[in-house]
């Protein structure tokens, strides 16, 4: 049993934190956000130069083919410094899915994303399915030389800036069946595709999609026909775990800010931190951060484990990190008082980021129910 980083992983972590400290200054961040940019193009280029976008690209495709720990280390820095660049969507989820793409598209898009030239967003959910990944009511029918897609997608993380979408659509089976789901690469500029761009409370620019007879060539199919679900599940698990690391990075940062405030802000002639009621709150926040970090490690390790174990651990981790992170984020605002409620301190932005991470790919409540379902299955088998 060992939770230590290897020497190389530690170097990557140091470099990611140094990058954040150099480029993650909050005043500049706010200025960028108020300009209305989805993210900073220069930062995205630097992330590519640092090799972050190659981490999840297999070596055969010219990437580094690194493991989950490397992704965790970078994602933690992303959360710690509130970075808005599409690392999880384009740098983690997309390369996992592209391993199933046809040769030419795979080569083109893997190279493009590794260089930071292409943004690829997975449209993972539908209005009628809430957070259920297997709910795919969008249809793809075979037409001459390709497929014709119709349906709606309620969420594509970073979708506002996407050049390509990866869209699950049903080629067979009932709406909630894992069988019969196919994955398609769809360029953002395509006839019949309406991209509704919106800014979330954490200033990420996402999208929802409407597909009205979108036609793509047969070469845009990812993986086998009707056989896309396992690949989708695998890629999304990797995305979920990366977002957990992002949450843990954000939790630690906002908790540190709050501790600093408790130690310096004075009311009634004494520091806030000298009040026992607030000391106990601070302790509970520290426990919450420890729990979340532990869950992040377990989930990261589980990505390399057996399929059944992996689902259970990731759902448990997503639920617990969601719960603990919202506690830490809300209490950080509360303990800062009025200033914590303004846009002028980073504290409020950390809370909004944590709320959005909890919602992404299924909130705590959803994942607790998933865990309950998988525990029922194992109990029945025992």
């Amino acid at each position: 049993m060992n939770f230590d980083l290897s020497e190389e992983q530690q170097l990557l972590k140091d470099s990611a934190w140094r990058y954040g400290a150099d480029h993650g200054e909050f005043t500049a961040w706010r200025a960028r956000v108020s300009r209305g940019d989805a993210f900073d193009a220069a930062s995205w280029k630097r992330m590519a130069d640092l090799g972050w976008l190659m981490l999840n690209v297999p070596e055969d495709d010219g990437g580094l083919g690194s493991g989950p720990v490397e992704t965790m280390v970078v994602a933690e820095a992303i959360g710690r410094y509130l970075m808005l660049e599409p690392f999880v969507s384009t740098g983690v989820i997309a390369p996992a899915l592209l391993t199933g793409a046809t040769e030419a598209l795979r080569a083109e898009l893997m190279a493009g994303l590794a260089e930071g030239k292409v943004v690829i967003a997975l449209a993972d959910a539908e209005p009628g399915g809430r957070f259920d990944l297997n709910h795919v009511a969008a249809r793809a029918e075979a037409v001459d030389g390709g497929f014709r897609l119709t349906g709606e997608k309620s969420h594509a993380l970073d979708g506002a800036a996407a050049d390509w979408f990866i869209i699950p659509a049903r080629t067979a089976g009932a709406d909630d069946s894992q069988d019969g789901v196919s994955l398609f690469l769809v360029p953002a500029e395509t006839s019949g595709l309406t991209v509704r761009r919106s800014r979330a409370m954490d200033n990420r620019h996402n999208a929802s999609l409407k597909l009205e007879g979108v036609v793509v060539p047969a070469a845009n199919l990812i993986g086998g026909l009707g056989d896309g679900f396992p690949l989708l599940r695998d890629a999304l698990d990797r995305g979920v775990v990366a977002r957990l690391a992002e949450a843990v990075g954000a939790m630690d940062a906002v908790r540190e800010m709050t501790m600093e405030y408790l130690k310096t802000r004075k009311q009634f002639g004494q520091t806030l931190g000298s009040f026992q009621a607030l000391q106990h709150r601070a302790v509970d926040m520290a426990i919450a951060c420890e729990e979340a970090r532990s869950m992040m490690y377990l989930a990261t390790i589980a990505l390399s484990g057996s399929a059944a174990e992996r689902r259970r651990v990731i759902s448990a981790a997503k639920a617990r990190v969601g719960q603990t992170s919202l506690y830490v984020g809300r209490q950080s605002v509360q303990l800062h008082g009025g200033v914590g409620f303004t846009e002028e301190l980073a504290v409020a932005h950390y809370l909004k980021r944590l709320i959005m991470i909890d919602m992404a790919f299924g909130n705590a409540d959803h994942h607790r129910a998933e865990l309950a379902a998988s525990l029922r299955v194992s109990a029945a088998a025992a």
Partner: protein
Amino acid sequence: MNLDLTPEQSAFRDEVRAFFAENVPESFKSRVRAGMRLEPHEFTQWQKLLHARGWGAPSWPKEYGGTGWDPTQLYIFETEASRADAPVQFHQGLELIGPIIFTFGSPEQKAKYLPAIVSGDDWWCQGYSEPNSGSDLASLSTRAVRDGNEYVINGQKAWTSYAHVANRMFLLARTDPDARKQAGISLFLIDIDTPGVTIRPVVTMDEIHHTNEVFLDNVRVPPSALLGEEGMGWSYGKVLLDRERGVTAATTTRLAQQLRGARKVAAETMLGGRSLLDDPRVADRLAQFELEVMALEGMVMRTMAEATSGQDSGPRASMIKIRWSELLQQITEYWVELQGYGAMAFAPLGPFEAPDAWAAKGMIYSRVTSIYGGSNEIQRNIIARRALGL
């Protein structure tokens, strides 16, 4: 002991219900339901509507232009308002400074200020907190120095909500720096356009400009700006803070609105051919909220009844403020959870509407309710010290 309304009270309820049914602007409702505040001009529009009906100041005595209603009538009024998705009236003139003016003000101050509060022509903002005096308000350092026939005020106020739309401001300033903490503080009524008043907007995390910093730089006001006596401002101010918590009691009746909003989303969201409301987990959560809201409403009703018969409700106002803010936060959080990805679009980046965003904004806004008006930590201290003798 009973909850029955007298025939007069029933008739009153019907009258109020009919008024709300006809007069609440449709465009207010979705925001009101999410616990959001309306835009200032909409508050004024609502105040003028109520004023035209003779209901501009429901909690004031008749002689100052109020309705003269007793607390039970007030409770009926607020409950019916909640049913109809009517907004809460903007409170800083009506509930905070108005009652102080009619209790402690001079005849001239009463004549000058009270009618314009009731009619909605004046907008008052509150200059209390300072950057270094939040929970510890009595440590405030804004100074008012007598200079000939004027007071000269210098200092800085924080969290001055709606200073950017207000034409008047009531503020606490220290007139005697040598007196004990609370004793040297006086209450002033000033015009916001007095030279030396500078307002800096502060945008809060719901991305709305409600609040401001106000800088007071050699602001010269006549002695008639002083309310009551010099050095008595703190005791008037404490009356205000107690009333502010009373306002919360009225706001509490609005939790039913948020709960209705959440329930509606649950009923309308279909998952696997069933509505979310059919999911026992969702039904349980909503039932838990219902029962907690019911317990709180019971506390409010007892407080109203005690006020009608002139009894002291002890620390219950503080308890109600704590529970109301906690429930508002939890219910709006759950409402957003029920929306799921529907709540992702905080602001559209294109020509389409984001009708579901109000719940998310209401949820974010609700974070401040456990901070303002005496934070929940301060409320707990008050209860521990004053009521429990700890």
